[in-house]
Structure formats: structure tokens, C-alpha cells
């Protein structure tokens, strides 16, 4: 099975974010990490390869720093990587990101394409589904299990409130993967060493320019959300705070 995993580098979960001068994006002098759902997507691809053989290719778009995500993926067991490298990729909407990816992989023949179900920075949950439509492939989202069968694959789709659904699909297909589908592995020292020699193909903005257009939507401004709640911060030593909390529980919340 030849599997492509689309991965994104996002600011670290606890990174303090500051607005840049334009007020329409953040200052990029923060620490970055792999988008967590994408890490689960990679792990799932590696497990499918271990079960059925084949190849796992990882792809990302972003500045030079985004290569870190690919290096880690190669160290974990991916076979090769594709880096759409340019600062400008950061500002593309889901549609143009998907178009750029489709253009970069046009000479490849994948059986499956995985993305995380959504990114921790934008949180749109669109890129995988858009990519499926651009490629003309079937897709399914928020996937918790994948099993190969003669007709293609059977996937387990997560629904709200604890419900699930199995879906039979032909290949090739795009799947967006839900966090918690598996347990993430750590890269081994050998893996990290081997990663250095694995192929990493760079794709420039110029290479995919013909495939993309201006964004169809625009972030006019970013801002710290206006608080609608009047939050009361309770301070003091642990014992003092415990007493203050009980006071609130008794007199305000009235559960004691």
C-alpha cells in the first residue's frame, strides 16, 4: 500500500502567541511542533505499512522550519518526504494548500492519503476533504479504524455522542484521521540516523504556482478574544485557595 500522509507544523500548544504588525497573523518567533492529529495519521500509515507492506510518504508545506516535521516522520519510519518550501505557503487557505499538494503529487500513484482531521492552529477540518474532491477520490472523515479488504477498505467513522459507523470504500481514497486511533511511537536512535539518508524532495512555490489562485477567504484580523465571562481568579497558598473555593461552592454555586 502506498500511503501519503499530509502533515502540518503548528505552534506548540503552550506557546505564548503574539500578534504581528499587520494584526492578521501571529509573530512566528514561537516554538513549533507537529499537528497532533497528523502524528496519529502518520502512526496509522506506518502500522498499515507494517501489516501490508508498501511505502509511506510524508508531505508538508511551509518555511524551512517545517522540515522538522518531515525529519521526525522519516525517523519514525516514513520512507520519503516532500517539502513544499516557502514562507508564502503558511498563508494559503485550505483550498490552495490542497491544490498545491495535488500538484506536487501529480506523478505519484498513492492508494491512500491521510490527513489529521483538523489542525490545531486553524481548526477548519477541510484540507483532506478538499483534496479528495480535487483528486476525484472518495473520502471519509474522523476515522478511528482502517481495515483492508478485497473491495478496498472498511473504515470506522466516529460520530458524535459515542456513536460510530463502518463504511466500505474503494481505493484510492482520502481519510482524515481522528486523534486516539492508535498509540504514537517514538523515533528510535537508529531511525533518526537512517532518516538522514532518506529522500527529501523540495517543491518551490514556482513549481505549483499554476495550480493555485488567491485565497477565497481572508483573515481580516486576529485578536485576543473579548471575554464575556467575569472570571474571578482565586489566589493564595494551596490551603487558602481550597478554603476560598469551598466558600464559593457553598455561597455562590450552592452545592455544599
Amino acid at each position, binding site marked *: 500500500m502506498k500511503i501519503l500522509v499530509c502533515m502540518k507544523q503548528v505552534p506548540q*500548544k*503552550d506557546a505564548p*502567541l503574539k*500578534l504581528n504588525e499587520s494584526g492578521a497573523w*501571529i509573530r512566528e518567533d514561537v516554538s513549533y511542533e507537529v499537528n497532533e492529529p497528523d502524528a496519529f495519521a502518520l502512526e496509522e500509515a506506518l502500522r498499515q505499512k507494517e501489516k501490508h507492506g508498501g511505502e509511506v510518504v510524508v508531505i508538508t508545506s511551509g518555511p524551512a522550519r517545517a522540515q522538522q516535521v518531515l525529519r521526525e516522520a522519516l525517523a519514525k519510519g516514513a520512507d520519503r518526504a516532500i517539502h513544499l518550501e516557502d514562507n508564502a505557503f503558511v498563508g494559503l487557505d*485550505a483550498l490552495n494548500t490542497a491544490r498545491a499538494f495535488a500538484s506536487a503529487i501529480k506523478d505519484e500513484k498513492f492508494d491512500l492519503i491521510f490527513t489529521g482531521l483538523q489542525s*490545531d492552529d486553524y*481548526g477548519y*477540518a*477541510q484540507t483532506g*476533504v*478538499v483534496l*479528495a*474532491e*480535487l483528486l476525484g477520490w*472518495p*473520502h*471519509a*472523515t*474522523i476515522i478511528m479504524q482502517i481495515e483492508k479488504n478485497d473491495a478496498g477498505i472498511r473504515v470506522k467513522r466516529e460520530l*458524535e*455522542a*459515542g*456513536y*460510530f*459507523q*463502518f*463504511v*466500505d*470504500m*474503494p481505493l484510492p481514497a482520502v481519510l482524515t484521521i481522528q*486523534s*486516539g486511533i492508535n498509540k504514537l511511537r517514538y523515533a528510535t536512535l537508529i531511525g533518526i540516523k537512517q532518516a538522514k539518508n532518506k529522500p527529501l524532495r523540495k517543491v518551490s512555490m514556482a513549481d505549483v504556482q499554476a495550480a493555485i489562485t488567491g485565497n*477565497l*477567504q*481572508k*483573515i*481580516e484580523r*486576529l*485578536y485576543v*478574544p*473579548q*471575554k464575556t*465571562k467575569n*472570571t*474571578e*481568579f*482565586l489566589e493564595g497558598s*494551596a*490551603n487558602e*485557595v*481550597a*478554603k476560598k*473555593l*469551598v466558600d*464559593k*461552592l457553598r455561597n455562590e*454555586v450552592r*452545592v*455544599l
Partner: protein
Amino acid sequence: MPDTILVVVEQREGKLNRVSWETLTAGQALAAETGWTLEAAVVGSGVSNFANEVAAKKVAKVYAVESPKLEPYTPDAFSAALRQFIESKKPKLVLMPHTYQVRDFVPKLATAMGRTAISDCIGYKKEGGKLLFTRQMFQGKLAADVSFACDAPWFVTLQNGAFRGDKVEAGANPAPVETVNVQIADGIIRNKPQEVFKEAKQAVDLTQAEIIVSVGRGIKEQKNIDLAKQLAEALGGELAASRPICDSGWLPMDRQIGSSGQTVAPKLYLALGISGAIQHIVGMKGARTIIAINKDSEAPIFEIADYAVVGNLFDIVPPLIEEVKKAKAGA
């Protein structure tokens, strides 16, 4: 002719998804703000009863978009049906709730039509004739006002709980209902969905709990959950958790709160070591009182907490358990 806002409601398993009323409330508010006409549509097979339910609300017209191929739900069928319908009716703005089903087909539909969707919006603004949609970014740490840079139709999905379903206005008279039969060619539908099922035996119904003590990644290890359990017991409440705790198997899936788990609105929600990621917040922001303990002062949970403690839960919870027990003993 004024522009039209089209609210596409959701029906599943023989019922209208309650979140549809929230979308209709948003549609009514936007219609009032813009002067545009509000219409609604329900998509499926044999859905005229749902259309009639919607027609009782204040809306100009309701459509039942019908095809036997729309049952069961598949993204191929829904995308094809709505594309046909939208191309013929040409609404300016298409509103849907940000449900798992909508997420499954709206990006496909928008792309097929050469358009885009602004997803998971929590509000809107009208600024000098321009319509902006507000959404959370970076797991709620920042908000973004987003505009469309393309022609209509504009697709917008709305976050659960962003609008009040109970505030939807009833109509003075039932709106006209029209059935629109759509054609879905053979070979369009590629997925074969099986029966929907529930996995976890629902041992506990968190939606009935008045008091919930919930743990997130800040609990660090499985054995520490016992501390939260003691607090829950002292308060007479139930134990719950954010997704990562349940994914790790530290608590069963029926204890999960969030978009994939339960949505609760208890009298008290005590969040221990929970950062406040959007997928969790949507499951508990309706709680009457929210108390959050987290060592990260920037944690988004503090945006919605009534009482906040920036500190180490392992320092605070043990004395808290003692104080609660004392209070209950009448001290």
C-alpha cells in the same frame, strides 16, 4: 430582489438534529441584520415531515430536497444534491451547523462549486457593508474575523452552542413547503455506509449529573485520576475527562466530554488540568458554573471559567477535598 440566506438543517436517524434550531436562530438574526430573505432546506429521503417542522418557524420558505439515494447519508450524494439545489436557487449565504456530518461533505461541496467554506464560526459582524465571520483559532487563544473573497454562494458552518436554539422565532403562519427532487446519477456514490451503532455501554449518563469533576492532560498519570475521583465523591458528583484521557484508556469512553463525547450543562463543572481546547469546550460551555484549575495562566479554559485558579492541581486538590468534606460534615 434581496439576496437569500439558506439554512440547511440536519436530520439523522429519523429526527431533526436539535442543533438545527441554533442555525435557524443565526439565520433569523442575519436576515434581520442584512435585510436578506431567509429560507431553509432539509436533505434526505422522505423528509417532508422535517420540512413541515421547520416551516413552523419564522422563515420565508422551506424546501425538502429529496432523492431515495440520499438515505443513508453519504458525502457524494449530499454534495451532488445540494450542488444541484444551490445552483438552481442561487442563495447568497448557506448556513449549516458544524456537525460531524456537515464537516464530512461541506468542504467537498464548496470545492466542487469553486467556492469556500468558513468553518466553525461563533458569530458574525457587519462592518461597513462587509459581512465578517468570527471564529476561534489556535485552540481558542485567538479569535479571527474572516471575510469572503469570492462570489456567492458563501458557505458558513456554525459552532455548537454559538447561537441559542431556544431563541428561534416561531412564524405567524406556517411557511410554504416545496419538495425539490434531485437527480443523483448511478456511480456517483462510492461509499457504502453500514448501520450506526453505539460502542460503549452507557454505564453513566453524564448529561444527568449536577456536579462534574473533569480531568485533562494535566492529571499526568493514570494513577492520579484517583485524586479527582476522591474530589468527585466528596462533592457527590461524577467523574469525566477530556478526549486524550479516554484515548489513553485511563477512563472509559462514556466519561468523555466534548464534540466526540457527551455534551453536558451541569450546575458545576470543575476542570482539573484541562487546557480548554475547542473540541472539549463545546461539550461543557453550557455549565452553570465553571471552575478551572490549571498551571498555565494562558490556558483557554480561563476564558470561560467563573472561578479560576492558576496553580498546580496536585497542590490544590488534596486540601480542597479536605475542606469539602469538612463543609459537608457541617463544620
